[in-house]
């Protein structure tokens, strides 16, 4: 295969892996603190994308904004809307169901996700159709031989990797991170040490959902198009990545994310004529891995668990 094209595929795989990892980390954090699966997580990605889209569009209509300013507005909107929807879902649906079976939370958040999705489809003008996402990042192309990549894509990838790293630092180095891990490991011991259970849970939901909102913005910027149901598949992929990597772990879902994107990319590169089946193959690999490593690639007892 042409090396330039190969590099193109690899770059795309890295980008997808980063986005999957960012979404998967959220699933893992929620499971870590509360042993719940928050299935609306994928749709929070969509909320982030549409909030950035709306905010950037609104600002552009009101005033001619410079690129960086419009980007900043979009970023704040994506993060803010993500965090807000996470906190609302956590407060109204997840905390009240704390003592209910986990499947109830799964069902409630699955429905909440549908509500978010339909609200976007029906609430946004012409919301059923794909929307062109504005180019908020600097234009330009980097070339190396037959490989070319947009500067915007490079920025998105680097920012995404930085966010993955930053999340790791938040969990391991900050007071919030310490509280999150304490509650995840023994909520009674954490409370006896003065950690507020509710605040920590909501903090976790804010953090994880902020990441989802950011993933939405990244997807919009990368594909230049957003869609009311863009979060559905991403939610399932993120969940799968978290499970295969190890729910409740921090490194696990990141590994899972790159693994999933890696398999997708491999299928596209090695068997181009079957690339339409890349998701099928990737999910089959995930199923096989879950069979081989029932508690995830990162083992239950490991220090890598949140």
């Amino acid at each position, binding site marked *: 295969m042409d090396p330039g094209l190969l590099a193109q595929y690899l770059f795309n795989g890295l980008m997808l892996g980063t986005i999957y990892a960012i979404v998967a980390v959220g699933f893992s954090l929620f499971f870590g603190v509360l042993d719940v699966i928050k299935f609306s997580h994928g749709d929070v990605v969509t909320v982030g994308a549409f909030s950035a889209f709306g905010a950037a569009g609104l600002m552009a209509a009101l005033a001619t904004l410079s690129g960086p300013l419009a980007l900043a507005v979009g970023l704040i909107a994506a993060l803010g809307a993500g965090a807000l929807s996470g906190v609302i879902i956590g407060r109204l649906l997840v905390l009240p169901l704390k003592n209910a079976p986990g499947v109830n939370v799964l069902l409630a958040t699955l429905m909440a996700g549908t509500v978010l999705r339909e609200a976007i489809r029906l609430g946004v003008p012409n919301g059923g159709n794909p929307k062109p996402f504005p180019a908020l990042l600097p234009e330009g192309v980097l070339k190396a031989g037959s490989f070319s990549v947009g500067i915007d894509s490079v920025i998105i990838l680097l920012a995404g990797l930085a966010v993955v790293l930053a999340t790791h630092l938040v969990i391991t180095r900050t007071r919030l991170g310490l509280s999150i*891990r304490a509650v995840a490991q023994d909520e*009674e011991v954490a409370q006896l040490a003065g950690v507020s259970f509710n605040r920590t849970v909501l903090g976790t939901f804010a953090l994880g959902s902020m990441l989802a909102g950011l993933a939405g913005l990244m997807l919009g910027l990368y594909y230049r198009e957003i869609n009311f149901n863009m979060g559905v598949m991403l939610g399932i992929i993120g969940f799968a990545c978290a499970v295969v990597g190890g729910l409740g772990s921090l490194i696990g879902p990141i590994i899972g994310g790159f693994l999933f994107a890696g398999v997708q990319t491999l299928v596209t590169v090695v068997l181009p004529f079957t690339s339409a089946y890349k998701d099928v193959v990737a999910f089959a690999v995930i199923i096989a891995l879950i069979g081989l490593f029932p508690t995830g690639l990162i083992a239950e007892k490991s220090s890598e668990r949140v």
Partner: protein
Amino acid sequence: MSRTEAPRPEASRRLSVSGVTTGYDRADVLHDVSIEAKPGRITCILGANGAGKSTLIRSILGLTPVRRGSVAFGGDTITNLATHRIAALGIATVPEGNRVLPRMTVLENLKVGGLLEKDRHRLAARMERMFETFPRLKERRNQLAGTLSGGERSMLSIARGLMTDPELIVFDEPSLGLSPLFVSEVFRIVRQLKEEGYTILLVEQNVRQTLDVADDGYVLAQGRVVASGTSAALAADGELHKAYFGVH
């Protein structure tokens, strides 16, 4: 134990449990239990397995809801207050089984105990003091708490409690499962903490050593207080020993 920071001011608040009835699901486990832990003293609660000692501790700390009755600490009524708020009032707990946060290092466990303290310098001084008091923990500061020995775990559980800068420390069977050497060490620490001015509520099954160290005591049987008094009086009560402690 040596201390570098100024000793804490004398404890002044009394813990009062008045007529508490509580339990799990339908069944009541505690029936109209009243106890007091006076400031600066060691109060012990003795009783056989299943007497309701841990349940009493849990209801004081808001972990098992109180159905009837009330709990007060100093001027604050803390009945069914959120557990973290009770902790913030100055009550530290060394829970049953000397629980630690297993996938965190020793240092991180202590930091969790220090989360209530916003002042970095005070926190650092307190951490330093813990390492002076428990040199073993200093050696193992970067080891995962889940890999500590039982004795080390009990030290860590106590140190984590002290990191919250409490006035009252509640111990739920700290000597359980420890070797005789560590049991003596735990009792030595409890006595030392009293001398430093802390108020202590000590749940134990180790009758002799507990009455030896405690000032006041209560005996719990089947969820009721069946005897109370100074520990000297309890120790001298032969009938009590025959009836509840299986000593003949």
